[in-house]
């Protein structure tokens, strides 16, 4: 038996309780003191309702786009060799490494009407919901790539060869054999990208324009309510965010568990 169990476990629980459980308990207590009726009442305030709808709608859309391009990127990185592949592979983690505020002002500069992209497209991107969407795509991409990539590189090449010997052409092989096998990983990546997008603040806030009822995201409303010392409304928005996220993630997890069960393999 190794020594130090009591000390290590005791300190771990103490620190965990102090730093994580206590703060989260505050949210739970505050939510409980509001009660569901009051929370729904606050959430049905048009401004808050629209912010929540915007956050969730755009997060789902961005996660969907990331699922498509993340898959394509993971495919490129695992299946093809080209000069600079390792560099590209490392670059995928840029959104993890770049502080969100830095990404935020950079995106705002690029997509503003006088920016590199903003000046060549005929419509407005920055300071509209489209700008928020762009920022959410930016921060969500690595989640999909990094969950699909290892599964794709561990995929048994025999599966694709078997499909070919059975007469399937390449497209059929990819759509009927490879992609269904990747589904659980793709769903996990989608869920992670979505969850991150819903709570994202720093990279969105500069490009969003933050126009009430139009381009105001839910996390911004939390900050605004806190600054007005309206802790109740802030907590209500946070609770709604958590509840809705939980519902979406539960759904994704169910689909994922279902496809995992069929595959009979834990990835």
């Amino acid at each position, binding site marked *: 038996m190794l020594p130090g169990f009591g000390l290590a476990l005791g300190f771990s629980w103490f620190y965990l309780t102090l730093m994580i459980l206590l703060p989260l308990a505050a949210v739970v207590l505050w939510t409980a003191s509001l009660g569901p009726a009051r929370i729904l009442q606050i959430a049905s305030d048009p401004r808050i309702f629209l912010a929540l709808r915007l956050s969730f709608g755009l997060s789902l859309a961005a996660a969907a786009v990331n699922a498509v391009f993340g898959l394509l990127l993971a495919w490129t990185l695992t299946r093809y060799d080209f000069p600079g592949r390792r560099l590209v592979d490392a670059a995928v983690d840029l959104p993890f490494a770049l502080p969100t505020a830095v990404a935020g002002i950079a995106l705002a500069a690029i997509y503003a009407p006088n920016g590199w992209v903003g000046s060549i497209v005929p419509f407005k991107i920055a300071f509209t919901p489209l700008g928020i969407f762009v920022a959410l795509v930016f921060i969500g991409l690595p989640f999909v790539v990094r969950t699909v990539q290892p599964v794709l590189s561990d995929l*048994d090449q*025999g*599966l694709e*060869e*078997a*499909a*070919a*010997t*059975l*007469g*399937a*052409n390449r497209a*059929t092989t990819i759509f*009927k*054999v490879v992609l*269904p*096998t990747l*589904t659980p990983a793709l769903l996990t990546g989608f869920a992670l990208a979505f969850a991150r997008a819903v709570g994202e603040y720093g990279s969105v806030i500069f490009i969003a324009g933050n126009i009430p009822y139009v381009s105001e995201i839910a996390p911004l409303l939390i900050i605004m309510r806190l600054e007005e010392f309206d802790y109740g409304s802030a907590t209500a928005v946070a609770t709604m965010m958590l509840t809705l996220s939980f519902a979406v993630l539960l759904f994704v997890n169910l689909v994922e568990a279902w*496809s995992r069960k*069929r*595959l*009979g*393999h834990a990835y």
Partner: protein
Amino acid sequence: MDLKIRHVRKDYGVFPALNDVSLDIRSGELVALLGPSGSGKTTLLRAIAGLETIDDGEILFGDEDAVGWSVQERNVGFVFQHYALFRHMKVFDNIAFGLRVRDRSRRPAEADIRKKVTGLLELVQLPDLANRYPAQLSGGQRQRVALARALAIEPQLLLLDEPFGALDAQVRKDLRRWLRQIHDETGHTTVFVTHDQEEALELADRVAVLHKGKLQQVGTPDDIYDRPATPFVYSFIGDSSSLPIHVRKGEALLDQTVIPVGSVSGPDGEARLHIRPQDISLQAVGQGVQGRIALLRRNGAFRRADIEIGADRTLIEAQIPPHLEVSEGDQVGIHFERFAIYPSGSRQSI
């Protein structure tokens, strides 16, 4: 369908994976490709299927050169070593896959597919498992599904890569007999790869032995075992010992003493004599080649003796009857009943 492999060559870098391999397989035959790992046997199988390109040579399906054909065009049933079953499809859909992916013009009606798959499930003795997923099957069951899936496309050729490699010993033996039965029932020209000589000798009509990308010998199991064509085949199949000798004018010499085995063929010079334990008999001291029993041990119904012979005290293994009264340290005379002599510097030596 006949399969003819003509002067096939495949290079991996500087090292030839297949070196001028030629092999004719008759319609309906069951042939084993046998060799140690790295011998090129799997490469040859994959080249036949079109999963691997070749650098030179011809692969004839019947009378047509199939080298330029894609995998899909070759219409071969391939059973992968780890089965490569599609995990997201039920057993039924796995077997039906090859029929469902056909062009509309060649695709059977769904009812016909159903009939065909049901028939195949019966053939492989898994009629009740159509709705299972591969993850819910045992290794032996997966094997059978993989075979049924390969047979569904009515292949011109059935190719199996280490078909029993991933199974445990008992299941392996059962499936081996069963595969032979299926082959005899369906009559497909079948080629399978194995590194297990017992499997090859028991199952195949003919065995092709490969070593370092070269075909060593093709023949019936009896040919391979009793009349090995090269020193490699001699030592790879069954137990054997080898003894350095000298050949001079049709006589075999050990340390300048003539081995009393009659005249031998082959060029003068250094050579090696290969012999199996059961082809050695013991005689009285003074008769035959002189040796000393270094070690005796029980081996099933017989005993095995390691006998030191010659000035170099080379050890050769002999099988001796259990009742023979000898013990370790005894001097004995040895008679070589059957053996083979291969010149030492020959390209085929190992």
